[in-house]
């Protein structure tokens, strides 16, 4: 009797989850399949069709401009994700172990900063770093410089600064959530055993935080390396990323085949990177570290 009931409940539940699952299949997964198909077809100017070809992948992987921008994306993503996690970790540590009653207000401020719009941030950095921006005019009025500094904007660094600004609150929240279960006793025990701050970080905190750090790193890498709007306003000719090129293919040239191939290459790269990171974590036995 009871088993029957459970079986029925299980079936009803599956039925309830089916419409949203179909929605995701049609409007999320089918579209990915469509670009995968487009990536093997020929076409320009918003028309796509047969003959079938692998030429799009040739151009995706060998065209100079694609390679430059792919390299830019990887470097920008690596640096942004590294700096973001590198800053987020000590901040999460402070919030967890040192902040006391300041933890809630500071965390609320961090969360509140997420509410600044995506375009608003880009705009804010443009007014700060621009040729006639806040930084240059402040330095000029303080007589530190005579001419505006040109290297502040329109390069890789200005893109990374804006991406860091976008990603840091997310990284802090992810890392803080992961640090919450670590009890202060653990660090006290390390104190008692005579471990200094460096040993505590390398032997206690980092092993426990390796897996969440990897997730946060991957998350930041994906959002920063796939961005095309920030580079458009802050990147200048040398700071453009692969997204710029994908956008150009899809919206301006209407070359769905070439754009599709680049998009698929991008997805595969992220998937490989993810698998690679998981393998490294497993090899180092850091994928599942238990705390007492």
């Amino acid at each position, binding site marked *: 009797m009871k088993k029957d009931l*459970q079986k029925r409940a299980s079936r009803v539940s599956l039925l309830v989850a089916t419409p949203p699952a179909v929605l995701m299949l049609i409007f999320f997964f089918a579209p990915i399949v469509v670009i995968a198909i487009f990536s093997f077809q020929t076409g320009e100017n918003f028309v796509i069709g047969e003959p079938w070809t692998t030429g799009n992948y040739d151009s995706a992987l060998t065209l100079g401009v694609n390679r430059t921008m792919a390299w830019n994306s990887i470097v920008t993503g690596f640096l942004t994700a590294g700096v973001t996690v590198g800053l987020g970790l000590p901040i999460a540590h402070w919030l967890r172990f040192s902040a006391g009653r300041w933890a809630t207000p500071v965390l609320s401020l961090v969360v509140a900063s997420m509410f600044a719009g995506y375009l608003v941030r880009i705009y804010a950095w443009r007014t700060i770093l621009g040729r006639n921006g*806040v930084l240059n005019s402040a330095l000029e009025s303080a007589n530190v410089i005579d001419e505006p500094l040109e290297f502040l904007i329109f390069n890789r660094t200005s893109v990374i600064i804006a991406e860091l600004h976008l990603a840091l609150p997310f990284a802090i929240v992810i890392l803080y959530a992961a640090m919450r279960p670590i009890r*202060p006793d653990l660090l006290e025990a390390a104190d008692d055993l005579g471990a200094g701050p460096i040993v505590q970080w390398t032997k206690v905190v980092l092993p426990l935080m390796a897996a969440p750090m990897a997730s946060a790193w991957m998350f930041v890498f994906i959002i920063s390396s796939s961005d095309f709007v920030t580079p458009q306003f802050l990147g200048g000719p040398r700071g453009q990323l692969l997204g710029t090129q994908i956008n150009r293919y899809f919206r301006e040239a209407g070359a769905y085949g070439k754009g599709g191939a680049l998009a698929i290459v991008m997805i595969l790269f992220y998937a490989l990177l993810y698998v690679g990171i998981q393998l490294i974590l497993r090899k180092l036995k850091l994928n599942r570290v238990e705390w007492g």
Partner: protein
Amino acid sequence: MEQQRPNRLTGFITLCALVFLFAPLVVVVLFSFHSTNALTPPFEGFSLRWYDEVLSDRTIREALLTSLKIASLTSLATLLCGTAAAYGITRTQARVRGLYASLFVIPIAMPALILGVALRSFYVDRGISLSTTTVVIAHTVFVIPLFYVVAQTALGRIEVAQLEAAADLGAPPWYRFRRVILPEVLPVLLAGAAMAFVISFDEFIVTFFVIGNDSTLPMVIFSRLRRVIDPSINAISSLLLFLNLTIWLIALLYSLRVQRRRRLDQLAQKEDVL
């Protein structure tokens, strides 16, 4: 009370990060009140003229309405579909459970750019003309995975014993959902819906690829960013910031109230027992 471990270095890093996060926003809000059209110091005088200009601009008002409409529909669709998905998947024991769950978890890792170009290709391929509807669908599939994770965590905390007791007493599934599960998770679900609203309201990249002739507020900001440079953008930005923060505050206050009421209920129950 847990012992605190004062740490000057990490405290200093946190302070610097807060300055880094807020300084740009302060600059934007400050110069939205500027009386001239300069965006940088010196600050020459206080004025509301840019707010006046922005609020009386027809394109902006229309875009604001479109954005509100899209965000409301997205939030509603996410609430319904996301709840159904999270509820169904946590309760079922079917073998396809893992497969179902992956439909909602994998998309979290997909960048907005990829979803945007993929959906655009899909719409083109199927001959679906781009409109606000295509945007709502796009935003919904973009936000559901996040909503799913939040809702699933909350639903997973419900004790099975409670549900079994209700079932033993003859409560049908819908009744169990409404009277046992819903009261428990409603605050989380509504917070998720608020999150969906805020994300949709601010979403640019996906929208950029799947919108037709209409314009959302981020689309207007984008085209202004390319054409004009004056504090009107600061004014729009500040308005958006205030709106988002208001929604967030309402959600926060609501969840605090629910938590307090629940604590009081538990207290009252204990007294009843005594």
